[in-house]
């Protein structure tokens, strides 16, 4: 899957944490690519390993983390082999990150102008005046009004939404190749949330930055992402384009996630959440980690981890249900609806371009 357009290639990443209770296998063999200018969403329940994955791209995992295996290739070099000093130079210049809570992400005792200018001063060796001038531009770009005056304000003088704009300005001030956004809107209320997402899309169009967008809210994903990776218990269990994941999901876990997603017509009614809890990563199960919560579980799920099965060139899912020998199961009603909708979509596409048929076949990764 080597690709010209890939800016980041993560291969076979395994990360453990040493704790009092034992070794937590937080990331268990994760591989994915990030293409130039795209938005890749990583979704999954709390504790599935989304943050740990991105932290290791930044080289900022906690001290008790052990990289068991894997590579993270960026511009032809393995980030996992870089020294701390080398990573300091990459962070904030080539790869930037924005965090969940804008209320706590900014230094409360430093003027925001300086906070935005800091990455320029560190990485480009800019003089103060020049860096501040660029910081000011950046503030205007992210939509802060009266930027000239507000550059000397402190974080507490801004609302949550404004603060997240400042955090975005800090992240993008060096026009990084990659922007990691770890639940950037979870702490904001809905209208502000939409504004921030629009801003991110708008800036992405301008800067051609690739975004890794982490969330457990599938609703946000639909409007933001080009591709989606679904994580469960330290593994990616399904990935594909947004349309494929939303309208033709193959993994029962993705079904569960989609079913628990609020839509226009579910409105305020109670949503079915996936019963049960994720497995204990201190001692992960032998087979498919999702088996215990999967009502479609097969015997083999308790014995062997499923490989990725190819659904289309861009769509893969790791579930034994896609094996030729597996019985045909009927997904939950709403998923069938989605798949019908997807079939229509694909037909329209085929009519347009006379493309290939979607074919299910096993693929070794």
């Amino acid at each position, binding site marked *: 899957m080597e690709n010209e357009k890939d800016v980041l290639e993560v291969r076979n990443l395994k990360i453990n944490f040493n704790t009092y209770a034992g070794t937590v296998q937080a990331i268990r063999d994760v591989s994915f690519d990030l293409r130039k200018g795209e938005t890749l969403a990583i979704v999954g329940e709390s504790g599935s390993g989304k943050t740990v994955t991105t932290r290791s791209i930044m080289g900022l995992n906690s001290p008790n983390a052990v990289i068991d295996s894997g590579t993270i290739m960026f511009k032809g070099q393995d980030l996992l082999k870089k020294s701390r000093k080398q990573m300091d130079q990459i962070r904030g210049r080539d790869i930037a990150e924005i965090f969940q809570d804008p209320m706590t*992400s900014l*230094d*409360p005792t430093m003027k925001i102008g300086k906070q935005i200018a800091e990455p320029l001063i560190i990485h480009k060796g800019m003089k103060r005046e020049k860096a501040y001038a660029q910081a000011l531009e950046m503030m205007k770009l992210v939509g802060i009004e009266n930027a000239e005056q507000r550059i000397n304000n402190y974080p507490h003088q801004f609302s949550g939404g404004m603060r997240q704009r400042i*955090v975005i300005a800090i992240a993008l001030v060096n026009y990084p190749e990659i922007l990691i956004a770890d639940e950037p809107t979870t702490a904001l209320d809905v209208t502000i949330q939409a504004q921030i997402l629009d801003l991110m899309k708008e800036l992405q169009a301008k800067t051609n930055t690739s975004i890794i967008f982490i969330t457990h809210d599938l609703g946000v994903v639909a409007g933001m992402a080009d591709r989606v990776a679904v994580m469960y218990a330290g593994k990616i269990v399904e990935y594909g384009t947004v349309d494929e994941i939303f309208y033709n999901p193959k993994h029962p876990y993705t079904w569960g996630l989609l079913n628990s997603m609020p839509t226009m017509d579910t409105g305020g009614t109670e949503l079915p959440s996936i019963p049960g809890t994720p497995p204990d990563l201190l001692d992960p199960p032998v087979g498919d980690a999702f088996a215990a919560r999967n009502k479609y579980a097969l015997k083999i799920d308790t014995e062997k981890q499923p490989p990725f099965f190819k659904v289309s060139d861009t769509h893969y899912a790791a579930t034994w249900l896609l094996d030729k020998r597996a019985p045909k199961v009927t997904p939950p009603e709403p998923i069938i609806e989605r798949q019908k909708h997807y079939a229509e979509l694909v037909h329209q596409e085929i009519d347009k371009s006379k493309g290939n048929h979607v074919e299910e076949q096993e693929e070794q990764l």
Partner: protein
Amino acid sequence: MAKYLGKRIFYIILTLFIVSTITFFLMKLMPGTPLTNQAKLTPTQIHQIYKQYGLDKPVWQQYLVYLGGIIHGNFGTSFQFSNQPVSYLISSRLGPSLIIGGQGMVLGVLAGLVVGAVGAIKANTWVDTSATIISILFISIPSFVLAVLLQYYLGLKLRLFPIADWGGFMYTVLPTLALAASPLAETARFMRTEMVDVLSSDYIELAKAKGLNKVGIIYHHALRNSLIPVVTIIGPLAVNIMTGSMVVENIFSIPGIGEQFVKSILTNDYPTIMGLTIVYSAMLCVVLLITDIVYGLIDPRIRINK
């Protein structure tokens, strides 16, 4: 700001008024008079002396006279040194106390900041453990024990510093060290907790994501944010120093107000005790006011205009 200051000063005056009142009436309850120790006096002599101290008037008149005096900086006459006004006794002794107290505070706080910051930066290593041991020891060993040990080992044995008396910087070294121990330990503890907190905060995480190196993070973000709250413990530390100075000044025979306070207690010199009580409270009020103002100035989140 002016409004805030006015309000604070009003409360200080109110506090000092209450303190003076309580002290005055407590002293009226005291057993013993200035004459307890001098038995052989004729009734006329006694009357003479009572008149001299104003003790022949009714209590409420004495109280008003006393309050009126305080406003003019007059705390009455000492029982112990019959002709000395208490205000003179105190003012002439304030200097040495302020010098060793101030030095002890500055040394203790600065050293404490270093010990605490190093402990936090090297958290959960042997450096941190040593820093913690230093603070526990200095918090636990009473100042009067430390003072005696310093006097004996550094003064008498090694002859590095004079063992007692007053007269120049060298004389201040040992008392300063003895007084600095407690603020050092308290500051180190506070600073460590504060900085460990700051270092695990989101904005430090963001600073790392910017590509700032460890030194940059500590220098530009962590230090200032953990230093600011230290201002809030200066008041309590000043109290520690006042307490400590009473024994330390005694041990090193320093002519300060701490030594005077203990002497006055032991000789039932009520006017001096009352005067010193008010002076101690006033000093504490001023320290608290200054630290609050400084806190407001250095922490952008706090605005003094309530």
